[in-house]
């Protein structure tokens, strides 16, 4: 067991998989010599060399097209899109090509590939380098969508994503890169589509993802001081979506609060809420509350960005609105 940063866990996870499987190759902008713009891939080039690690031009379509073509012919590429905002310039390859080709070809084509991307706000980078776009990805049939919140989950879920036979979008929350956590020694392989129950409490079920997980835990701590004990679930994966864990918890608590960094409209919490409302309505003892970034682009100024993103106060307030 070693303490490791979320940032270092990325390189650790990539190296674990590249060591295991020679068909895993890694490509993207500044990922090799520079060690990644977030320093999340430091050392990978030194370990595996230029026959497996490829610095690319700023050509997001060419990066993801190369990953797709290689995946359909026997390789298992891991591609990086530096900022998830840049998915907008290569969304055709993601949404029209990678996501749909298995279906359109009646299962002839298999695309075992991973697209990692720095996602989310908190860095004061402004509206084009701060978005949380996991809900874009979730809306496209054919993709799997993962967003870890801890260093251990980075390693385990990345391994699961690389070994999965479907294309996986792997969102690394930029505001978590500096956070640290325990990572067990040896190979770690997790499972896609399995939420983690991080805290148990009878008053309400708070479901969060990625950078919203530590905030939800902090809110739970504050509520506990008032005698309100809530359950906190880290969803970890949007596709597959672990409805069972959430529904089981809601059946006990009677309250659901989602905490989403993505802007409100069509965020993942809306889908989760609709499922619970449709299938578990009579378990509910209060309104479902969604705590989200409002339907705005993210502003750059720290004061404004902090006001836009869900924070502990808003989560606490959201729980109160459901339980009271």
């Amino acid at each position: 067991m070693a303490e490791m940063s979320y940032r270092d866990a990325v390189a650790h996870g990539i190296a674990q998989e590249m060591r295991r499987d020679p068909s895993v190759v890694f490509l993207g902008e500044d990922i090799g010599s520079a060690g990644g713009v977030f320093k999340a891939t430091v050392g990978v080039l030194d370990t595996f060399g230029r026959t497996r690690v490829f610095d690319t031009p700023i050509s997001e379509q060419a990066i993801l097209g190369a990953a797709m073509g290689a995946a359909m012919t026997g390789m298992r590429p891991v591609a990086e899109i530096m900022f998830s905002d840049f998915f907008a310039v290569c969304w055709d390859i993601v949404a029209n090509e990678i996501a749909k080709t298995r279906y359109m070809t009646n299962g002839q084509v298999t695309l075992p590939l991973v697209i990692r991307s720095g996602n989310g706000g908190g860095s004061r980078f402004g509206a084009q380098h701060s978005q949380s776009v996991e809900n874009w990805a979730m809306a496209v049939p054919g993709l799997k969508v993962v967003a870890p919140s801890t260093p251990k989950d980075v390693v385990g879920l990345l391994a699961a994503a690389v070994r999965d036979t479907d294309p996986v979008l792997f969102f690394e929350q930029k505001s978590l890169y500096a956070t640290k956590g325990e990572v067990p020694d040896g190979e770690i392989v997790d499972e896609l589509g399995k939420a983690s129950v991080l805290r148990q409490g009878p008053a309400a079920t708070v479901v969060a993802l990625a950078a919203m997980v530590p905030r939800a835990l902090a809110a739970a701590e504050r509520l506990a001081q008032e005698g309100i004990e809530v359950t906190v679930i880290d969803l970890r994966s949007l596709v597959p979506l672990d409805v069972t864990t959430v529904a089981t918890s809601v059946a006990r608590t009677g309250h659901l609060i989602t905490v989403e960094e993505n802007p409100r409209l069509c965020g993942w919490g809306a889908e989760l809420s609709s499922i619970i409302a449709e299938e578990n309505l009579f378990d509910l003892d209060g309104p479902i509350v969604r705590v989200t970034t409002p339907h705005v682009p993210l502003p750059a100024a720290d004061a404004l960005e902090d006001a836009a993103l869900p924070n502990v106060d808003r989560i606490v307030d959201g729980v109160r609105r459901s339980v009271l």
Partner: protein
Amino acid sequence: MTDVMQPSVDAGPPALDVRLRLYQMMVEMRDFEKRAYDLFLQGLVKGTSHLGLGQEAVAAGFGAALAPSDYTFATYRGHNHTLARGVPMAPVMAELMARQLGLMAGKGGSMHLTSVAHRMMGSYAIVGAHLTIANGAAWSSKLRGAPEVTVCFFGDGTTNIGAFHEALNLAVVWNLPIVFVCENNRWMEYTPIGSVTAVPHPAADRAPAYGLPGIVVDGNDADATYAVAVAAFARARGGGGPSLVEAETYRHGGHSRADPGKYRPDEEVAAWLERDPLPLYRQRLLQAGVPEQALVSIEEASHRAIDEATELAKASPPPDLSLVEKDVYADGGAAWRR
């Protein structure tokens, strides 16, 4: 600016067996596309389709030069290129007719013909995207040390979209074993490519900017396309890197479906019909001493084949409705929740 190749002058014509094969491929493509058009008018071909009538010499010339393990990527106008890989007519026609027998059981349709078993790695309907994907297949061949090449066909309209430029640059930077083939049929959809492009040869004139050979070839001359293909594939297979070929050709019909193509000047259409690759090649083979009966045999066999394929496709039922939720994910299903 570009290398205009005159291969039949340089290297002599292909061997007789190759020439008969080229003729057979073109006749089959022509029969297939004419039948697809008839079936469309009868309401039996559903949705949309983009015919390659008039452009057969490109798909045939390059198709005949491929080794079985090489990869093909094509566009929504990809019937010819699919047949050129040896995919039987019946499943292709059945795919157009939305039948269970279809190449993808009707899930892809005319614009997405794919047969991985024939290394026909797909027909792509978003202009430009598949150049980047074809790069990936070529990259994979290189990574695996496999002596495979990739050929990627696309239209003239593709040369003005970003993915074209991203793909050419990366192919050269990574020295990929790939041959890009632009079928310049002069019209994007309803607009002439020359009216919206800064250079006369929309593909080949861009090649110098990316450091790869830009080759212009008569796309209605099967001997010429074959010779260019052989040279470009040999270069790619030998580690010489990618090439960009611009084959000048013309589509006999409209862009898609029932488009009559009336926006094109009558004189232009007439001039290109004079240069129809099929009678042109037939005449050349006769002049080379091929007995007419050999050509008639090819033609009759093709006519029988398309009739049989049509009947097989017509006899096939619509796809099983269980296919709607099949193969979204690799577990075979569409489940997104647990």
